[in-house]
């Protein structure tokens, strides 16, 4: 079944740790996105990709980085986590952005 998967679902880590949030999709979509969302708030685009070896920064300044080595995989890395990074991170993909986005279930990150 075509879908988009995010792991881990929940993560609690200490300040200064390096972490990678995983996102994989099985739909063959070229476009993938990372959004940050605080509880009950709007979504902010932090990174996106139009295909392999393509990555762009989004509207929200972020201290994270992404890579797109394979079509199906779009991991997000925080080199040094801080409490201000505590949030929910949502990964999404789309087929040319024409039919809407498919979202993963999200990773809820807490940095202590």
């Amino acid at each position, binding site marked *: 079944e075509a879908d988009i998967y*995010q792991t881990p679902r929940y993560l609690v880590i200490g300040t200064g740790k390096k972490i990678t949030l995983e996102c994989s999709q099985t739909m063959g979509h070229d*476009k993938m*996105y990372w*959004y940050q969302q605080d509880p*009950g*708030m*709007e*979504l902010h*685009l932090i990174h*996106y990709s*139009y295909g392999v070896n393509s990555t762009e920064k989004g*509207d929200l300044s972020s201290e994270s980085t992404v890579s797109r080595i394979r079509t199906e995989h779009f991991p997000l890395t925080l080199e040094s986590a801080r409490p201000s990074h505590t949030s*929910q991170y*949502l990964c*999404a993909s*789309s087929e*040319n*952005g*024409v*039919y*809407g*986005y*498919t*979202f*993963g*279930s*999200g990773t*809820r990150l807490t940095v202590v």
Partner: protein
Amino acid sequence: SQQGEEDPQALSIQEGENATMNCSYKTSINNLQWYRQNSGRGLVHLILIRSNEREKHSGRLRVTLDTSKKSSSLLITASRAADTASYFCATDSTNAGKSTFGDGTTLTVKP
């Protein structure tokens, strides 16, 4: 500033009633999408309406688009307790397929 802004921020109704949510945006768009989000989960795509369409239906959902007023509405008819969620509109204002999301309407349907 946000491209899409939903109104109202929160809506509470009884089961069986209709729920209407509005979305306003600022720039020209290619399409507008509505999503639903259950608490703590990812968003689920509900319906997409293109800029040359005025109305679209999907089950109990009815979406309208008025490009002259830069606004859209989502109507959920005969609401159910299971419709309780946050609803977001998103606009694609370029051909790059990068959508901007509003801050959502929280709908509570009381059984």
